[in-house]
């Protein structure tokens, strides 16, 4: 079984982004970048399938600026076999990303596409579902447990009410949630090995997709600030304050 793992290069989630003074965008030049943490979990799961003999090949793909190759190297160091970089200077959005991934799926013919449930930069939570829709495949989103068997996957999904278990037919798109696994750190020998693994470079045009976004982000602003309140000295004072404000 071949597995495809799309990964996104994002600003490191522990770095705070700054809005340009004129409100025209977010300044991410020179910020530390990382693989979207949810995608890291997806890479880990795919690599575990390979280690257990369930998957024969793990192919990883990333779409974005030329530096996505660095992010792909991380996935290769974790254990992916080869990588595809779709390079564009356009800030691509989920629908166009899903269309490019559909073209990659048609070339590569994986049985499973596994990816993060959302990217921590735009927080859209769309791409996996859109890809499944475009392919006419089943989708299992927000996975916290995946059991692959012949032609099917049983997936425990993290939903608002608790856990929902679904069975989906393969091929399928699976998007992963936090508790699926703990991604490994790549070892130094594996980082060195990853440098020799193949990375193919493509453009959106090669995939026949126009990357132009449909959504215009026209203004960026700081969210309304909360006024930091005061510190109280004791539990008794805290309770008095809450009683005064009428909440307890």
């Amino acid at each position, binding site marked *: 079984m071949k597995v495809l793992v799309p990964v996104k290069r994002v600003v490191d989630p522990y770095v705070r982004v700054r809005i340009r003074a004129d409100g025209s965008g977010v300044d991410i030049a020179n910020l530390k970048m990382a693989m979207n943490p949810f995608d890291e979990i997806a890479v880990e799961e795919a690599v575990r399938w390979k280690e257990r003999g369930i998957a024969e090949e793990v192919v990883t793909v990333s779409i974005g600026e030329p530096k996505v190759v660095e992010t792909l190297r991380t996935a290769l160091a974790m254990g992916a076999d080869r990588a595809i970089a779709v390079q564009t200077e356009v800030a691509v959005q989920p629908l166009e990303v899903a269309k490019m991934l559909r073209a990659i799926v048609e070339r590569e013919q994986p049985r499973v596409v596994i990816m993060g449930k959302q990217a921590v930069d735009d927080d859209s939570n769309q791409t996996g579902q859109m890809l499944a829709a475009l392919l006419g495949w089943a989708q299992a989103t927000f996975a916290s447990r995946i059991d692959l068997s012949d032609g099917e996957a*049983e997936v425990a999904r993290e939903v608002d009410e608790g856990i929902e278990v679904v069975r989906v037919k393969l091929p399928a798109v699976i998007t992963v949630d936090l508790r699926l696994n703990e991604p490994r750190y790549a070892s130094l020998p594996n980082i060195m090995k990853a440098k020799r693994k193949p990375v193919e470079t493509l453009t959106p045009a090669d995939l026949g997709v126009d990357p132009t976004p449909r959504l215009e982000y026209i203004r960026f602003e700081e969210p309304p600030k909360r006024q930091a309140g005061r510190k109280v000295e004791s539990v008794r004072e805290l309770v008095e304050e809450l009683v005064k404000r009428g909440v307890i």
Partner: protein
Amino acid sequence: MPALVIAQHDNRRLDPATLATVTAARVLDSAVDVLVAGHGARAVAEEAASVEGVRRVLSSEAEHFANPVAEDLTELVLQVADGFDAILAPSTTFGRNLLPRVAARLDVAQISDVVEVLAPDTFKRYIYAGNVLCTVRTKDSRRVLTVRTTAFEKAATGVGSAAIEEVPAPPRTGLARFVRREVHRSERPDLTTARIVVSGGRGVGSKENFQLVERLADVLGAAIGASRAAVDAGFAPNDWQVGQTGKIVAPELYIAIGISGAIQHLAGMKDSKIIVAINKDPEAPIFEVADCGLVADLFKAVPELIEEIERVKRERSAA
């Protein structure tokens, strides 16, 4: 053309998230229809018909809509979509799962987690874990939106009497099927709609210690939340998670215990009316958003707090 709201429900009652979504839809368009797909969900359709501002309810009954999968529900939405130029669902796991599948099939760029409708084509939403508020304009003539339910008032129920129309259910796609749901049964209020939320973080230290958070919640009649760090550490189940990747809450009172206040957590609770933080680290970022901060060891302060609240309640009932 009217707007369509996809109802979230459990075949017995309309989820309050749907009511907030109706309010958002009404800002877009004066005519709002609600689609109720269910099994034995007549009561839900009737409740939807009574919601303020709803013009018409589309009801679709089928066995496979008892616990519908997105694959099957999408086919139903597409069947009725032609009559609408805006399709909305709450930004809950239900709506987040379903709507991008619909949007892609309609070739529409979805706008997720809308917090404000500025114009029929212009919306506000957060990116970067709530750190940046964006104004987004779509070039698509049709709009597909998920709605942050804490950002809109809930539409009133029991006021209208919209017509209910039956819509035949498309057959199962056979791509996916529901197996079971493991719900954490609890007498406590629902996290997303509770008036008071008590949340614990990594500082709580262990699953056993979380009982302290639970005791405080029970004294207050509150729902329980947790930070991602606490969930990751296995102290609390994931459906308690508040934050960028968990639930968004906006209660009247939010009590953060042993939570440092990572931006990812603040994204999920900073619209709470009053925020209380108890943390032993005076430099913890949670204090920057807290209305009331107490620098203290939580293992000392929380039992004291429980005692004090019980005392206040006793005095109140004696008075």
